[in-house]
């Protein structure tokens, strides 16, 4: 029986009677999902609702010479055919820049292309009809005349003089550039016993949410109000953007998220087709629905990674790492994505390389260039998988070069557990990390020595197994330093409102959102604990800008650490209010009372004094019996934003054990381990499942997932049969371990855990493959994903 039940809480400072902090309580909203009774945006239907389908450019770069839609307009069920120029009268264009990414530039992007399409898949015309099928029939009849333009597809030549400039107004194809030079890098390399250099390649891949992007927009001309049912991670951000580009007040826009079928960072951006859907609803004065089909998803959902990183490490014979140097290049499509920009991933790579190590010499260059492919932007673990693979790939190459064990070189270089607070060479500030304790935990959890012995024994039988590691740091709980300071209206603070209902139960409204990670469970745990009721008495409401406190939503591993703290504090505040009511009823002192398991008790001895349902009855229906001048306040709101640290960094280490079939090039994953430190663990089961899910997305990047393009900018595998994602049969069991270093920035001390798995998995799978093949003299594999053909090439077999 592998199902572990709820466990009693570990005693911490957060311990209160009937505390749920640290317990694996099941999520409150699961039954509706297992019974098929959830409501995803793709399930939403409204009266008079129309459906939109888009005619999309088959060219990577083309001038739109004409659009003829006479036949479409006569087609059964068609309500409207709308071009980019027509829609531009309803909605203004946007430019994806942030002022703190100095020099970052982009061009205005419209909901539907005007005059020119800049990637294969960009919408050039909308057809609105009674059904999606009729809208697609209509699209078939739209006659678009294109003049193909040269496509810029290779980032390596994007800045060459002879390469056409995609947006002439920008002057060149450079979106963003960052340089960093810390310490004495040249001197360090010159004085090192050994220097290892290689080039890492990271294939473009994408989130492949099982529910494609979905939106239903409902402009009510009578109310002058736009209601948008939107599968998004950030409803308040989208409220702001819909209002801004439709020239409405934010009050006129309501965004509801409902159930969201996977997001992983894919659903936190502005998509032209979704903006067009909202604009079409305004134009047509009726609800309009858009659900991307899978083919559309592959060519329009943001892609990520696509980096070439030349990298170098210096090392001494005693294992001391002397310097890191990287030169990163990435092509991000024709536009920087709004409003988070497409400069963040490369910027994160610069920030994060070398991050776990005490190495003072670091030089980095990153260039972000435009190209005529689908746009790239932030996907789960933004920049981390690249930075971790570069760093950890270099560290294991250095270890091999000097003949040192890969764990030993880490022991000699990881920042010491008693060195905090401190900063990385790139300037990241660390409050408290636990690299060494995590490594020691991993070492024993996986029985490293035993695995090495097994590996050696099997090699004699020509069975090639590898062990690879990846230490990592992860950005979580972002303050305004991430986006707010750059001018984007993306809230870093979040709020929770907690109220006592008339039967003594609790309702929580929170600004963070649920995409399946378990945010609603965590919020319920926080409030149940700090207020003092059993968790079944707590109902959580998220994803509705009309009814939840203003907040940032769910991204950058912030929901538990920030939303959870706001909920914890709101629960505490309401407890204070309720105890004031109880004290006036009981003629007691509030400080001598507490709420335990839904009953007001004497704090000292737990004697039951007043059940909450009775308190609520009096406060709501017989307030006349309360003392004159006393007003019960049975609703409390608290907000929280991290202030002491720009980010709450977490850390951890992963290991992969795998076997390479040297005849076929196939990799069989045998086992995966992850030890991580996300501070206070509110719900151990949810943390472990975030880790496991994240690891598997990282494994996808290492072995399978790749958006393949030809040199004309055509995506070659934009369907689920050709674009491979991890399936159950190929995935290993994943063991999780924890070290707990709470952040002192909040009372809860919780940091984020949503991206750690994805951050480290590609690196340790890469290192394990190279470890397996090293005795065969194989060329080091650094070009993700590591498909069988690449492995056979590295072995010299093809």
């Amino acid at each position: 029986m592998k199902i572990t039940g709820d466990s009693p809480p570990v005693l911490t400072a957060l311990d209160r009677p009937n505390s749920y902090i640290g317990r694996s309580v099941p999520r409150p909203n699961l039954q509706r999902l297992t019974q098929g009774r959830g409501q995803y945006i793709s399930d939403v239907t409204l009266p008079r609702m129309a459906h939109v389908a888009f005619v999309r450019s088959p060219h990577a770069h083309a001038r739109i010479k004409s659009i003829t839609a006479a036949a479409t307009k006569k087609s059964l069920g068609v309500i409207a055919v709308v071009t980019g120029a027509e829609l531009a009268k309803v909605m203004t264009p946007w430019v994806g820049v942030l002022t703190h990414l100095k020099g970052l530039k982009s061009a205005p992007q419209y909901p539907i292309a005007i005059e020119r399409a800049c990637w294969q898949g960009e919408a050039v015309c909308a057809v609105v009809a009674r059904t999606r099928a009729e809208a697609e029939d209509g699209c078939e009849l739209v006659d678009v005349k294109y003049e193909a333009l040269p496509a810029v597809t290779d980032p390596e030549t994007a800045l060459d003089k002879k390469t056409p400039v995609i947006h002439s107004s920008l002057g060149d194809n450079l979106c963003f550039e960052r340089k960093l030079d810390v310490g004495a890098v040249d001197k360090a390399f010159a004085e090192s016993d050994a220097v290892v250099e290689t080039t890492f390649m990271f294939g473009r891949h994408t989130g492949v949410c099982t529910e494609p992007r979905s939106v239903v927009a409902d402009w009510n001309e009578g109310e002058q109000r736009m209601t948008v049912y939107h599968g998004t991670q950030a409803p308040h951000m989208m409220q702001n953007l819909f209002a801004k580009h439709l020239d409405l007040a934010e009050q006129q826009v309501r965004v509801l998220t409902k159930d969201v079928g996977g997001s992983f960072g894919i659903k936190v951006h502005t998509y032209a087709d979704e903006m067009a859907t909202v604009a079409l609803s305004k134009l047509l004065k009726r609800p309009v629905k858009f659900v991307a089909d899978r083919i559309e998803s592959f060519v329009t959902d943001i892609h990520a990674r696509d980096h070439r990183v030349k990298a170098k490490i210096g090392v001494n014979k005693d294992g001391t790492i002397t310097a890191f140097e990287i030169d990163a290049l990435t092509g991000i499509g024709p536009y920087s994505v709004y409003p988070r920009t497409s400069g963040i991933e490369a910027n994160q790579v610069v920030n994060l390389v070398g991050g776990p190590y005490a190495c003072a010499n670091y030089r980095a260059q990153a260039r972000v260039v435009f190209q005529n492919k689908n746009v790239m932007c932030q996907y789960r673990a933004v920049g981390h998988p690249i930075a971790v693979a570069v760093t950890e790939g270099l560290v294991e190459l250095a270890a091999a070069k000097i003949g040192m064990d890969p764990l030993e070189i880490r022991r000699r270089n990881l920042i010491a557990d008693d060195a905090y607070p401190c900063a990385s060479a790139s300037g990241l500030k660390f409050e408290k990390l636990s690299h060494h304790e995590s490594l020691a935990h991993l070492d024993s959890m996986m029985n490293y020595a035993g695995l090495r012995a097994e590996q050696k024994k099997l090699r004699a039988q020509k069975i090639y197994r590898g062990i690879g590691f990846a230490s990592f740091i992860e950005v979580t709980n972002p303050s305004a330093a991430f986006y707010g300071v750059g001018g984007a209206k993306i809230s870093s603070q979040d709020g929770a409102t907690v109220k006592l209902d008339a039967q003594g139960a609790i309702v929580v409204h929170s600004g963070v959102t649920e995409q399946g990670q378990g945010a609603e469970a965590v919020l319920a745990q926080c409030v149940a604990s700090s207020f003092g009721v059993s968790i079944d008495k707590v109902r959580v409401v998220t994803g509705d800008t009309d009814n939840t406190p203003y907040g940032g939503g769910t991204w950058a591993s912030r929901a538990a650490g920030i939303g959870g703290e706001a909920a914890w504090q709101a629960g505490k505040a309401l407890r204070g209010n309720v105890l004031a009511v109880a004290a006036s009823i009981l003629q007691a002192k509030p400080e001598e009372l507490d709420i335990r398991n839904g009953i007001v008790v004497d704090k000292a001895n737990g004697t039951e004094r007043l059940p909450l349902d009775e308190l609520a009855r009096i406060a709501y229906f017989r307030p006349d019996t309360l003392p004159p001048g006393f007003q019960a306040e049975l609703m409390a709101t608290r907000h929280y934003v991290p202030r002491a640290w720009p980010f709450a960094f977490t850390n951890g280490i992963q290991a992969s054990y795998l076997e390479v079939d040297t005849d076929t090039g196939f990799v069989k994953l045998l086992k995966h381990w992850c030890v991580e430190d996300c501070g206070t663990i509110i719900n151990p089961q949810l943390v472990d499942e975030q880790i496991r899910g994240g690891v598997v997305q990282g494994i996808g990047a290492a072995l399978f997932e790749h958006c393949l393009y030809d040199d004309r900018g055509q995506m070659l595998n934009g369907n689920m049969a050709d674009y491979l994602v991890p399936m159950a049969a190929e995935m290993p069991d994943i063991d999780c371990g924890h070290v707990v270093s709470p952040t002192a920035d909040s009372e809860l001390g919780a940091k984020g855990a949503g991206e750690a798995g994805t951050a480290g998995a590609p690196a340790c799978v890469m290192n394990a493959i190279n470890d397996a093949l090293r005795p065969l003299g194989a060329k080091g594999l650094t070009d993700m994903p590591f498909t069988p053909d690449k492995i056979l090439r590295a072995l010299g077999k093809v």
Partner: protein
Amino acid sequence: MSELPLNLALDIALTVNGEQVRERVEARKTLVDFLRDDLGLTGSHVGCEHGVCGACTVRVDGEIVRGCLMLAVQCDGAMVETIEGLSDSGEIADLQLAFEQRNALQCGYCTPGMIAAAQDLLKRGGVPSRDEIRERLSGNYCRCTGYHAIIDAVESVAQARAGGKQ
């Protein structure tokens, strides 16, 4: 052969979750679109529309099928069971409970299809190995969980059902 109109419609009669249904549907309409759009059974999900992801898995005449690879008109006379029907009958109650307790779902979009596929495996009897469970669920994509928890949940139900029979 002359080209048929895109919206050619046909009458079909079938049983869906035990209820008699008679509808006129376009010949081109897939079973999953029919279930969702015409009958309001939105528990069956559309993930890829080309038979790969398994989110639309439903049971037709006792066998699991991809709702996106079967046309509604092919189900004339058939007995169709969706997650709504399987839930209400209690047939999969233990699987649902195990998925909930083990957090074997996150966003839940793949879950109805995943549970239908798991039930198809388990109703054959015996206690499949973890590898066998992984193999048999490989036609159902989950992007959230990494599968480990799903395998745990299905394995625990297989063991419990086998134990119950002894």
